[in-house]
């Protein structure tokens, strides 16, 4: 009975709110997805944080720092959205540290030059936006509203990333080389951010029925590729895919085979930075323990004094 009403609501495009009845599987799917999203924002601070101290101009430094700060803010919204499902931020962080919760695998790649700040903003945030725009229509209210807020800021980030790439592509030969190298390294991991091909994606079934997910991975990936090819041409770089070509009949670009062995290997912990990223987070968390304890202790004392 409950389940039927729940489904009717979803079919009518009404949002599910925290106090509404929901199947346990819906709840756990959302916790998994939203926390993965939150962790991605937080772990995603590291590859870009890696260049804050070395940004090449005052303007570039302020833009990058503000961007990484935005990501921390997105992490906050998303943890809060997740908390409405009855799980605390501490538990979520613990799951991340225990390896039970994942984050987007793209952040397990290193950022090796300033051009990577362009590539990450343009491609990684670009791919994220395509996904997030679709998620603005997700059925869970707090998640949907979080996405609306986040999308606005992400589109800024994408433009800023593209601007870095464009500037470098028309710069000195060394800069152009860095830009192309960044594109070569980030292209395939970026298009694999949309996840496995739908034929191989185990959880799509209920997620679509419950409208947590609104579009298939392959659809979103195609959309991203179609919109990015033109942007690459404008700045005179080349996409590292010899099979990429316009398909008149489909009205889309065809593209080469993705290396799913590498994808799963990185997801399962063997990327260049998996250990480093998680260790960084654990270290900051444990080094902050005495500070959080002090703040709790002080606030307890104040409560006693004011009681």
């Amino acid at each position: 009975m409950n389940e039927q009403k729940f489904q009717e609501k979803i079919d009518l495009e009404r949002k599910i709110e925290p106090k509404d009845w929901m199947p346990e599987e819906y709840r756990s799917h959302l916790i998994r997805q939203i926390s993965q999203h939150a962790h991605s924002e937080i772990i995603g601070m590291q590859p870009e944080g890696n260049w804050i101290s070395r940004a090449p101009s005052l303007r570039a430094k302020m833009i990058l720092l503000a961007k990484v700060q935005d990501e921390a803010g997105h992490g906050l919204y998303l943890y809060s959205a997740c908390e409405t499902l009855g799980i605390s931020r501490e538990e979520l962080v613990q799951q991340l540290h225990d390896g039970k919760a994942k984050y987007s695998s793209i952040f397990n790649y290193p950022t090796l030059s300033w051009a990577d700040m362009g590539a990450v903003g343009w491609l990684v945030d670009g791919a994220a936006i395509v996904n997030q725009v679709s998620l603005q229509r997700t059925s869970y209210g707090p998640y949907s509203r979080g996405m609306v807020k986040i999308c606005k800021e992400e589109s800024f980030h994408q433009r800023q990333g593209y601007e870095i790439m464009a500037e470098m592509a028309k710069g000195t030969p060394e800069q152009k080389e860095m830009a192309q190298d960044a594109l070569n390294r980030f292209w395939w991991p970026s298009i694999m951010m949309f996840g496995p091909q739908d034929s191989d994606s185990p959880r799509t079934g209920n997620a679509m029925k419950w409208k947590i997910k609104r579009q298939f991975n392959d659809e979103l990936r195609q959309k991203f590729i179609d919109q990015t090819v033109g942007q690459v041409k404008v700045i005179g770089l080349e996409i590292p895919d010899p099979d990429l070509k316009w398909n008149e009949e489909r009205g889309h670009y065809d593209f080469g085979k993705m290396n799913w062995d590498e994808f799963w290997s990185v997801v399962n912990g063997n990327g260049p930075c998996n250990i480093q990223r998680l260790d960084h987070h654990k270290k900051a968390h444990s080094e902050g323990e005495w500070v959080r304890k002090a703040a709790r202790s002080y606030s307890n004392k104040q409560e006693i004094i004011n009681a």
Partner: protein
Amino acid sequence: MSLLNYTLRIADSSLILAQRISGWCSKGPTLEEDIALSNIALDLFGQANGFLEYASKLDGNKTPDQLAFNRNEREFFNLQITEQENGNFADTIVRQFFFSTYSFLFYTELSKSTDETLAALSVKSLKEVKYHLQHSKSWMLRLGDGTEESKQKTQDALQYFWQFTGELFEMDEVDIEMSKSGIGVGNSELKTNWDKMVNEVINQSTLERPVDAYMQTGSKKGLHTECLGHLLSEMQYLPRAYPNAKW
């Protein structure tokens, strides 16, 4: 020439401290604090940018970015306290508390400068510094009156950073000239209020004021601690490695 030098001193302290604080990004004790520290760093970069733009105009030759990325250690005039490493969270808070208390008093005076640009930049900076001071004060209380461990760490930080507080109130010939002409601030006169504000917070935090001992000096002549060279080599790496590139 004196005005340029005077402006650079202000710009450099903001720039170097901003560069330091931005090192906390993704390492804060909580997500909220990570965001707060990035905010402070962003404010200080913005202040540095404003003062460097003015310095660039006065210089007539170098752009603000060239001033930030192409000067050597001996050409930087930031207060030595700003270049000290972040250390633990208590170190960062104590450094910020000393500096923000000073900046609050300094910009309050400099906003009355006869130099319109300096006055306008100070008014803007003062608004931000009030928040920085509030932030560091509230942490001084929580850390000082938190746990035994936090108290000890904060007391140790007070002890370490104390040696860099003498510089805040030093006046050389540039300061005297600027102050006399109504452009600059008589820094030595800020000390009474600084002591008062600092003592009050130290007492409230159940901490102890360090005993005055030897005070470090030198930044007005471009003399620094070993910390600055490493900071600059990292900060300036790209523009130095690719001098013909635009970013």
